[in-house]
């Protein structure tokens, strides 16, 4: 086969090749070990660390406004390598936290390049922890703008709230722990307990931000290098600012109302025996029914759950028969109702923030009505009567004391 090349053909091939080469590719060549991978970010109110203050004194500083402090958690490769080789605790920590205080988040991250030899990259950012006091004054629009804009950072990065100093949640006692990974791992435990809410990622959050709807962020507290997921922070839709905390019980109530429970324990007192009894929730869902009468809207929430009895402290509960079952079901149902009331009262009456998603339901069922109320939805929501009921099925009672 003879290929005849003439000048036009050469020119065409040349042009095609060139045009391929000038396409936007990835020109940013940087060997991976020349980069600092940051996996966690903590946003706090402005407070310079001692080191920063010292450096600030010595440096010729262009006076930035001190609006907030950013702490980056960078994975420390040297120790990670050692950690991989030996089973024991390595000598140095697996991570490195660096803080910077200023007014622009990206500027502070870039400033770190003047302090470290390796530039920080955000491809592997897993978690952003925001201090609650900071979020009270600064809206999520402002705080998360950079993270949403930057195309390196993945939108599945999780956002959390801390009622203490956010940077403390990124600290750990042991040397083998990377605190950002620990936080992520803890969120995986949702199937074990009802006290952890579904992860709020950047892309879900962005949706709420644009819809101006209220939502919750997982609250995390830290002390002495240990962390605990505890309750949730409520962000108001309109302002996108922190409104208040839900304690663990209130969060539990809200999770049950929204039907987002994956699994966990509900403990209550068995009304017959007056002893503690624990119900393990295996599956649940909830449905919101909207009924409209003129301009009056009301909601009815039907919760359904299946589960088993996992612990019973009563010594003489008698045989496990239908009566026993019904008794337990009733006790647990009553407890769920109590929890739901507690949670609903808090979000509806006190915070006036629809974090369960009644608004979404209304917008689906009554789109015209929704157009009218959506501007001031959180206010309207606080006045809407909501009823709820629960239907519980105990599918098994465990191996103990079987019939």
């Amino acid at each position, binding site marked *: *086969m003879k290929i005849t090349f003439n000048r036009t053909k050469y020119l065409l091939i040349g042009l095609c090749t060139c045009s*391929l*080469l000038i*396409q936007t*590719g*990835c*020109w*940013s*060549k*940087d*060997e*991976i*070990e020349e*980069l600092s*991978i940051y*996996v966690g970010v903590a946003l706090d109110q402005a407070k310079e660390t001692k080191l920063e203050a010292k450096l600030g004194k010595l440096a010729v500083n262009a006076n930035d406004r001190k609006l907030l402090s950013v702490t980056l958690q960078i*994975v420390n*490769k*040297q120790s*990670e*390598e050692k950690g*991989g080789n030996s089973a024991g605790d390595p000598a140095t920590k697996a991570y490195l936290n660096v803080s910077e205080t200023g007014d622009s988040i990206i500027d502070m991250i870039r400033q770190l390049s003047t302090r470290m030899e390796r530039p920080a*990259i955000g*491809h*592997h950012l*897993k978690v952003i922890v925001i201090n609650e006091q900071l979020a009270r004054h600064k809206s999520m629009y402002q705080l998360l703008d950079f993270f949403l804009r930057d195309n*390196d950072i*993945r939108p599945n990065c999780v956002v959390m709230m801390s009622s203490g100093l956010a940077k403390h949640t990124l600290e750990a006692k042991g040397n083998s722990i990377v605190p950002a*990974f620990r936080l992520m791992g803890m969120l995986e435990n949702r199937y074990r307990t009802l006290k952890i809410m579904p992860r709020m990622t950047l892309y879900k959050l962005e949706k709420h931000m644009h819809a101006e709807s209220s939502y919750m962020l997982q609250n995390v507290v830290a002390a002495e290098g240990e962390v605990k997921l505890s309750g949730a922070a409520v962000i108001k839709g309109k302002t996108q600012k922190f409104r208040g905390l839900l304690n663990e019980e209130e969060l539990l109530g809200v999770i049950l109302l929204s039907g987002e429970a994956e699994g966990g324990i509900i403990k209550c007192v068995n009304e017959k025996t007056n002893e503690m009894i624990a119900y393990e929730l295996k599956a649940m869902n909830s449905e919101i029914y909207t009924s409209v009468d003129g301009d009056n809207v009301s909601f009815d929430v039907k919760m359904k759950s299946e589960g088993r009895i996992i612990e019973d402290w009563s010594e003489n509960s008698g045989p496990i028969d239908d009566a026993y079952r019904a008794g337990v079901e009733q006790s647990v149902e009553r407890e769920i109702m109590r929890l739901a009331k507690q949670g609903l009262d808090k979000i509806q009456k006190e915070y006036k923030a629809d974090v369960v998603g009644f608004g979404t339901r209304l917008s689906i069922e009554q789109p015209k009505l929704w157009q009218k109320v959506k501007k001031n939805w959180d206010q309207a929501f606080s006045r809407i009567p909501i009823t709820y009921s629960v239907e519980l099925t105990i599918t098994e009672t465990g191996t103990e004391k079987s019939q």
Partner: protein
Amino acid sequence: MNDNLLENLSLIQEKTKYYSDVVVRPFALGDSGKAGAIIFVNGLADRELIDQHILKALMSIHVDQASITKNYIKNQVLSVSQLTEASSIDEFIPKVLLGSTALVIDGFSEALVIGTAKVKSRNIEEPISEALVRGPRAGFNETLSDNTALLRRHGENASLAFMSIQVGERAKKDLIIAYIMDIADPDLVEEVRRRVLKIDIDNVMESGYVEQLIEDNYLSPFPQVQSTERPDRVIAALMEGRVAILLDGTPFALIAPVTFSMLLQSPEDYYERWMAGTLLRLLRFFAALISLLTPAMYVSFISFHPGLIPTKLAISIVGARVGVPFTSLVEALIMEVAIEILREAGLRLPKPIGPAMGIVGGLIIGEAAVQAGIVSPILVIVVAITAISSFAIPQYSAGISLRMLRFVPMFCAAAFGMYGVILFFLMLCAHVVKLKSFGVPYASPAVPYRLSDWKDFFFRMPMFMMKQRPEMLHTKNQKRKRN
């Protein structure tokens, strides 16, 4: 030639004075008083045959001189099957040089040429380059007649045709084009014949010469003719409607036309049950991709896209690479070239040393290079996977193509990251799609799309479903079954 023996002999002596291996043996024809001589090449001609059936018979003639005629000798004395006449010395000398024995007798103006060629041929052994677990343990050898016999012996098939052509200007060699008359496309056979006839070279060493002289595109990295040592493979190809070329002096037969998918197929795909065959075939396609792209992916991930590596892996890669002084491209090149050298060295080494070399090379150099901080352990894994994958390709020549090609995307990756790798892959695909082997598109049946041929492409469908021969070959008889 005249009828005087002595004159003839001196003429022969004159003609063969530069052939030290030509033996001229004069003798008397029994007690008849006539004399003769045989001329043969030492080593090529069968000594036993000459002694027992020619010399012995001729020397024990008991008839009178007058009754010794050419026909008498031919019909009553020489008990050999292959016998021709030659009227001039120049006519029989080439034959003698190939192993025949010329018999000149006083008073005859023609020489008798007796076929005494004895070729020492290797036994039919299992082919080394294409070993199988299941399948016939027979491979071609260096003798053309043995090879054609292997094909004939496969089964009674009156339509198996052998077309003989001589190639090479100075050293003329026999070449046989084999095909099945009522299956193969006559245009294809004609095209192969035409290309073989066009071979214009003084010497054809091996079928590789033929391959390179008849292929479509000499610039392509891919082999456009399949070479094989296995008779079963050749027969299967013939039955599909392909054409085979066998050359004297080499165990490697050529099959044309070839498609890319054939290079990743093994006869075992058909001998094992279809599920195993399909899975193994898919595995080989996967291995081909790995051997082509893994080092390039490594380079582009490390140098351009740290975000595409799972976080924990990224961290451990960083930890492993922290002491490595080279960029990922240089690092990968060092190891890839090293492994190619090892492989090449392993091939050339005497058999007992080969495996030891492999261990030294693979284990010790890899381990030591990591210890010394020249390369990262991740790269050693990448290189090892690449090497192993390239061994999984059943055709040696296809393996070489991929081994060679994989260096190109590495440079593309170092320049443009993943984008470069994708560009490379696109260009490679464009090339493969455009390439043809004897008129059959190289990428078929994918491009051009022929659904019915997909039964024997990525998948190997159960036997009962493969009722048709490949459509791409335009065979005379499409059906494989009687009905």
